[in-house]
């Protein structure tokens, strides 16, 4: 149970929210949405890596294919 990754994802989530509100409060709506999308993409990549590890593990446990 790799706690570090969870904290990383949480930290990026918080910072993306902060960046979104900072940009929005200065009137740059489009850049705010772009920043949120970028944050979501980064977190998505991390989650996909973890999912790939999970599938390999399940495969090795059940020796299915």
């Amino acid at each position: 149970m790799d706690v570090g990754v969870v904290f990383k994802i949480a930290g990026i989530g918080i910072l993306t929210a902060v960046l979104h509100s900072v940009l929005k409060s200065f009137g740059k709506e489009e850049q705010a949405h772009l920043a949120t999308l970028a944050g979501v993409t980064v977190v998505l990549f991390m989650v996909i890596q973890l999912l790939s590890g999970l599938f390999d593990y399940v495969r090795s446990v059940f020796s299915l294919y």
Partner: protein
Amino acid sequence: MVKVTGAILVIMAMGTVGLVVARNYSLRPQQLRYLLNGLQMLETEMLYCLTPLPLALKRVGMKLPYPISQFFLNTSTSLTNGEGITAGEAWEMALGELAEESALLMEELDILLYFSQSLGVADREEQGKSLRLVKEQLMNMEKKAEELKEKNQKLWQYLGFSLGAVIALVLI
């Protein structure tokens, strides 16, 4: 331990970049105001005191702060050295250095470049008219620069540190 130091360094570096960008935004209207002051003093010296151009430029340059002072003083020294260049050329040469040292943008420098063509060439009336035209245009730029500063200065201060934190988190 090394990771933490690296993260702190990244955050500080990006924060500094953000602060520098914010500072440029706040320096620009200030330097435009000094430039306008300088042009006003130059107009007074030339039209009412009838001082010759190199001396007028030098006097104006000594009353202003850096980097605007450097601009006027450079023009003045190029003219007094007597290498046979026209006032317009001396103005343009000093303008090149001003472009590097100051926070002014291409638009203001273009306005000043346009003015160089009429410097020291026309008679008193024409000189006064072209000086007033340049001042009008620079006053418009100064208003716009002031608005930009209001909008962007704080933004970039926060943005620098936030981006640094994001990069540090991704890399840790």
